[in-house]
């Protein structure tokens, strides 16, 4: 089974990010970057499929700056076989341009599965996976929380509002992975050593800017400070009054 996993380098969710002086990008100074957590589910699922099949190849593909090699190495340390970095200093805001660059790399690759994380935790767009599917003319199932594959057919479960949707699809297909699909492994020591020697091809790429432009970024409004109304039953009337008149939630 030949599987491609598309991954993104994103700021660590525990990092306090700041908006750069241009007012429309993140200030990357001192920011720690990680493999997008939803992509970890995709990498893990690919590794499990390859392990179950006993043969196959897991190829990790990313579009991003030179530093995204580290992100790819993380996936290689988990157990992926080789990596491809489509290197660009600027990831376009328009997901379609990212999808075009990835699709150009993936087409004719002979992949049985192309996996993505459900979304990237930096832009929350949920776009690139389905767009790549469309560009490659492949079926697409998003937010997969459980997966069965038998021969050239797959069955995926999606957690939807109030229930579970079961989708059957033929291979090859594009899937985006959700939390709950699996528990991603940590890289083992041997994996980290081996990752250094695995092939990682760097291809300079110049994606078009596309039709979207980020005009401005603003931090969320500062949360108002909490207020201690009082203590014990005596404070309840005042609390009710404030909830009604100030917070207007009652």
């Amino acid at each position, binding site marked *: 089974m030949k599987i491609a996993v598309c991954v993104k380098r994103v700021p660590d969710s525990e*990092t*306090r990010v700041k908006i750069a002086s241009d007012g429309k990008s993140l200030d990357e100074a001192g920011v720690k970057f990680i493999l997008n957590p939803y992509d970890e589910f995709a990498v893990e699922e690919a590794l499990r499929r390859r392990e179950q099949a006993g043969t196959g190849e897991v190829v990790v593909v990313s579009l991003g700056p030179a530093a995204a090699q580290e992100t790819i190495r993380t996936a290689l340390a988990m157990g992926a076989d080789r990596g491809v970095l489509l290197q660009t200093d600027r990831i376009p805001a328009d997901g379609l341009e990212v999808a075009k660059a990835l699709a150009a790399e993936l087409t004719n690759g002979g992949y049985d599965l192309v996996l993505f994380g459900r979304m990237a935790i930096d832009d929350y767009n949920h776009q690139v996976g389905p767009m790549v599917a469309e560009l490659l003319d492949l079926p697409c199932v998003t937010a997969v929380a459980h997966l069965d594959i038998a021969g050239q057919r797959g069955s995926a479960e999606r957690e939807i509002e109030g229930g579970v949707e079961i989708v059957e699809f033929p291979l090859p297909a594009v899937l985006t992975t959700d939390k709950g699909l699996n*528990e991603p*492994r*940590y890289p*083992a*020591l041997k994996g980290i*050593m081996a990752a250094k020697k695995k092939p990682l091809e760097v291809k300079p790429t110049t994606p078009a800017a596309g039709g979207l432009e980020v005009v401005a970024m603003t931090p969320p409004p500062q949360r108002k400070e909490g207020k201690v109304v009082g203590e014990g039953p005596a404070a309840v009337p005042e609390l009710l009054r404030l909830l009604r008149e100030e917070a207007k939630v009652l």
Partner: protein
Amino acid sequence: MAEGAGSREQFLPAQYQPALPLDRLILKDGSPGAGDRMELDVLIVGAGPAGLACAIELAQLAKGASTELSIGVLEKAAALGEHSLSGAVVNPRAFRELFPDMQDSDLPFRAPVRKEAVYLLTAESRLRLPTPPTMRNKGNYIASLCEIVRWLGEKAEALGVNVFTGFPGASLLVDGPRVVGVRTAASGLDRDGRPLATYLAPNDLAAKVTVLAEGTRGMLSQAWCTWQQVTAANPQLFALGVKELWETRHPLDRIIHTLGWPLPRDAFGGSFMYPLAPNLVALGLVVGLDYRDGALDVHSLFQRMKLHPLFRRYLEGGEMVEWGAKTIPEGGYHSVPARRSGDGVVILGDAAGFVDVPSLKGIHYAMQSGMLAARAILGALQAGDVSPARLADYDRMVSESFIVQDLYRTRNMRLAFKDGFYAGGLKAALMTLTGGRFPGRKITMQRDAEVARHIAPGVSPGPLVPDGRLTFSKVDGVFKSGNVTRDTIPGHLIVGWEGTAELAEFYARLCPAGVYEQVDGGLRVNAPNCIDCKATDVLGPRWTPREGGSGPKYKRM
């Protein structure tokens, strides 16, 4: 405990301290571990300035000698630098020797020290003191140790060194008297020690030479010295430093050190405030763990200290962006182990006690010790002889280096303060004037845990209610340390004997991270709060390594 401010009860923390779990730390049976096994030429435990300088020097020397060396560095933090904390004002000497082709401007420093001031504080005022000769910092640089470590780590990796972050060294593998490698800590266990889906078994890293560069209160270093009965003239003494990083509105243009308030007179310590950038200020309070008042709380004293006009005028209106704490080995010359090398093993940096308290420096000694160890190790590997006699080259080189020369010059200065601040200050001045010859003999010290603690109600100020702007609770601090330790990992602290309410309160005050709480006279342990400062390892419950990546995630400490 009797009532009334006049009553005084004493206890010795050592009485309640569990023994070092040597059977877990020194594995003699040679049976293979459950996980992977890997063979290396040199294994370094700890990716701090000592370990990384050792790795870089080794890789550079091997390259020059056209020798292939496999070098691995184990680091318990999830990423480089995340467990590193220092002031820091750095003497660039070791950097210049390690990177002879670089200019100072290429090095990972923030700014040169341009102005400096030392103050003696009282609760309301301050007295500017002449800067003691040992504390002059002309030619030194202000830096963040996290940034230094990340930079050194990249240099090491570029030279082919394998840096394994997220893998704590948990035990020494030994064969007879020889250290033959290290077993890492398991990860992915539940609270009762049962494997989860993400379980990673302990790995065995076999090495011809094992380098212990674990930093302050290194557990494997302690275990090896205990096992091999390597002692020092004095026991090692420790201090606890609590530090914060602030984005300030008011720029700071100098480094500031203070003595006196808010410390009681029988405690040794002081504060620092350094500008990493004009509006990015590191400040902290360091207190020797031989303090007498059982109710002393370093975190709380530090919070109180920030209310002093000297600090307040910079911090007001700013934002605390990081918090952390760490112990410092302060014993100096007389506390350095009699030998720092043995069969297949060497000990570097803070783990060996290479810190000079009067000048508040350790980073360049740590790096230099790493570089000297690298030279000795390469010689030993080339000769195919890692015996104690051969690795003793490292000890000889350290003894002839500026590390031991500097520590010898100030050998009694920290020790003079065991009798309190004023007597200590006078003796320290005489030592400076006589070039270290006064008082002509070694001052004998007790282990910090052997110093009796007084429980005297009313001596220490009551708990400070944090305002969330200038002052913060321990829990706020732990949050700002970036600690997101999984709260279902097995407990890693060995508490041992169930103590009294007073003892529980002592631990609660001692720990800056709120790990210990006195609840209804008993002790509650919130182990995931732990930020690996090792303070209670010195005076109470023992610290042991836990799942890799646990603990703080310092960025610019």
